[in-house]
């Protein structure tokens, strides 16, 4: 196993790629009773057209299949549900689907880890889809879609994506629509399963008090033999650099308007992405973070009640900056934000301010290592982006003021910005 150590935060990660292609990452952590395992496949809601390596068949799938598949993986041939089995062991089990991956996980604070591992590795490797169980799931997922329909924050985000993207599937609801899921059948689920749930498309991450060599053997023992598979060719719509629309507004049951400013960025380059990510986080905090002039002004006028949520979100297929919050005057906030960006571009970054925010961001990264769950989820999500999570700590000092200024000029351009607003009815 390849060992990477971060001396700054005193943690190590063990990396192994098995012959069948499965990536395994183990982050041993002493002094904790919690163990967290997460097994993910690089298959998310945006992967809706691909060529199956086994048959060379091109497959188009309805929106929402990755998420539907996630729901259906728990059902077993013998009539049991693996989620129930794991819960019965006292394990906190769950699964989730994002734009670019699907993950199955449990957290253990007892001696039942290996019993849980039996179940997890068994159900992820043994799908069981029938017409009947697929039909039944449509009711449950339909309710889930409707629940999100009432969620203003969710709508706000989707509308932002709709502003930024013309065709990229990131603008669609991960769960699909009631209409799109009605077309899902066992055949399409099996096709996706057989393609994307191959070890070569998956990463397994474990964090907790383990001896990595022993754990690796335990994982290997539970892997079922599978023939090697070639690369999966994924076909994505070609996305233009421009944004789709400047703004989108909707009305929902909210007390005060909510807004999200989006900035579309070009597709990330794996070499640079960690550095760029750090620089963008520093910039967002300098522009509108807690100690910024703009935040102070907007707080004092009662236009912002709390610090906005600041994020740089990216996968291999998309990248964008998001600034979200709640305000009586969302349009004004958007204008002021754009003005502040121009001012920063013109005046350059203040040295003291830059260094102070860097210290803050560094502390945020260190704090992520408080929980085995956060660590494991971070390593998994980063691995699908081609990133080793420790790089955020290790490359930290390479982010200079000059570099950050350059990123400001490159990324924060007005013609790539849009705003989504939800107002009270």
């Amino acid at each position, binding site marked *: 196993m390849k060992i990477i150590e971060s001396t*700054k*935060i*005193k943690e190590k990660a063990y990396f192994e790629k098995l012959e069948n292609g499965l990536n395994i990452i183990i982050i041993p952590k002493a*002094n*904790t*009773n*919690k163990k967290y395992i997460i097994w993910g496949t690089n298959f998310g809601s945006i992967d809706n057209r691909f060529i199956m390596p086994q048959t060379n068949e091109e497959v188009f799938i309805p929106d929402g299949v990755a998420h539907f598949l996630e729901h259906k993986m728990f059902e077993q041939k013998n009539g049991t*549900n693996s*989620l*129930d089995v794991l*819960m*019965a*062991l*006292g*394990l*906190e*089990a769950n699964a989730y689907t994002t734009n670019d991956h699907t993950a199955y996980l449990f*957290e*253990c*604070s*007892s001696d039942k880890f290996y019993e849980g591992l039996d179940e997890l590795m068994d159900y992820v490797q043994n799908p069981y889809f029938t017409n009947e169980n697929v039909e*039944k799931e449509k*009711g*449950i997922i339909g*309710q*889930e879609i*409707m*629940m999100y*329909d*009432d969620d*203003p924050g969710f709508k706000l985000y989707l509308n932002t994506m709709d502003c930024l993207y013309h065709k990229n599937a990131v603008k669609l609801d991960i769960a699909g629509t009631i209409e799109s899921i009605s077309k899902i059948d066992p055949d399409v689920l099996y096709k996706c399963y057989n393609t994307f749930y191959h070890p070569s498309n998956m990463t397994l991450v474990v964090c907790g008090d383990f001896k990595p060599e022993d754990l690796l053997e335990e994982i290997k023992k539970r892997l079922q033999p599978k023939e090697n598979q070639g690369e999966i060719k994924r076909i994505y719509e070609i996305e233009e650099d421009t944004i789709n629309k400047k703004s989108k507004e909707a009305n*929902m*049951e*909210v*007390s*005060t308007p909510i807004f999200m400013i989006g900035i579309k960025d070009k597709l990330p380059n794996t070499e640079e992405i960690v550095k760029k990510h750090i620089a963008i986080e520093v910039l967002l905090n300098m522009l509108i973070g*807690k*100690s910024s002039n703009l935040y*102070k002004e907007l*707080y*004092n006028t*009662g236009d912002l*009640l709390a610090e906005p949520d600041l994020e740089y979100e990216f996968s291999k297929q998309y990248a964008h900056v998001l600034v979200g919050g*709640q305000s*009586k005057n969302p349009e004004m906030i958007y204008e002021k934000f754009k003005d502040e960006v121009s001012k920063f571009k013109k005046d350059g970054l203040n040295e003291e301010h830059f260094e*102070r*925010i860097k*210290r*803050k*961001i*560094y*502390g*945020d990264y*260190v*704090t992520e*290592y*408080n*929980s*085995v769950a956060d660590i494991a989820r971070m390593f998994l999500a980063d691995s699908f982006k081609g990133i080793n999570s420790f790089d955020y700590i290790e490359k930290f000092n390479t982010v200079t003021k000059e570099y950050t200024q350059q990123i400001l000029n490159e990324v924060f351009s007005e013609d790539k910005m849009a705003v989504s607003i939800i107002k009270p*009815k």
Partner: protein
Amino acid sequence: MNYKKENLKQGITFHKINTNKFKTNLFAIFLTTKLDRETITKNALLAAVLRRGTKKLNTQEEISKSLENMYGANFDCGVEKTGDNQVIKFYLESINNEFLPSQENLSKECLEILLDIVFNPFLEDNKFKQEYVDGEKENLKQIIQGKIDNKARYAYDRCIEEMYKNEPYGLYKYGYIEDLENINSQNLYEYYLELIKTVKIDIFVSGDLDENIISEIKENEIIKNLEERIPKYNINNENIQKNKVDEPQVISESMQITQGKLILGLDVLENKKECKYWASVYNIILGGSANSKMFQNVREKASLAYSAGSSYLRQKDNIFIKCGIDIPNYEKTLGLIKEQLKQMENGDFTDDDINNAKILISSTVGSIPETQDSEITYYFSQELSDEFVSIEDYIKKINEVTKQQIIEIAKNIQINTIYFLKD
């Protein structure tokens, strides 16, 4: 045992949790008062005004800058209902000195800033700064209005309000817009001075901290200047008498939503101390896990709901059943829920169900020390219930619960309120 407490003065308690599980240290100060319509809005406003500035750091911007320089120390404050008390909570989290890129001592600095925020507020003309009070009144108003934003939470809050009409627990933790009008910087400051003299104060530190932190606290000028007090608060473990109701009250409200939120507020009429453990297990079997009756029968088998579960409110002896459903399925879901309650009464659950519930609770309680603020919250709730049950003993008591005891709880459950949020 990694937990120690010491009375600094009557009514002022210091709690220390030693743990090396984290990269951070967490400091907290809790001020506990009785829930009361008279003071609830003032307390909520106070938390917001205090974080605006201290004698040394006059503005929020200066506080933020100091915290950013301390490697992004995180400050948070707010109000919470805990049983019949309202607790004003202040937290500060910072990186443990060991993980800093340079040699610095952040923990001492942290403690000082936190104490300053609570006990050394910025004043102008011997009262709170007018601008801060006015601004925070406006903010709090928006927060109170924002109650409707999260529909599931709103339905739950409304159900509690209806269940505890005219009782302290029915109060909304952020207070009331109409009560805000009469508050100004002068009378809020007078209220604050009185509060600081009489309120129950708990100071928590959690992390890999030096033993001498306790002497640092004792020698702190602010602590030295605080007077002894006989704090007025409600001990949470005292028996709650509940009245039998003939028929549950049924309330429905309309909003523009697509998914209905159905909440059932149940009373646990048994109120022996040990019953809290029985009711915990009962709740898990009824609706507290993916194996529960609610999840299995209402969500999975009948496909009636996306969310279906229940939670047990220990301090008030209530169980709340919560479902997100298709609006026309109201009657059908309600019928099915009542059937689950009946099954519980009939003892229609297996030894496996009981064991699974016990394992789940043990594992949840057992992992409390894995999160710094959960561990603080656990010891604080022991403090408020005026008894001490260690995490190990808690798990032991859960494991002693029998089927007969769970059935006894089931027979002593009544539906108090049915609340439905629809279109």
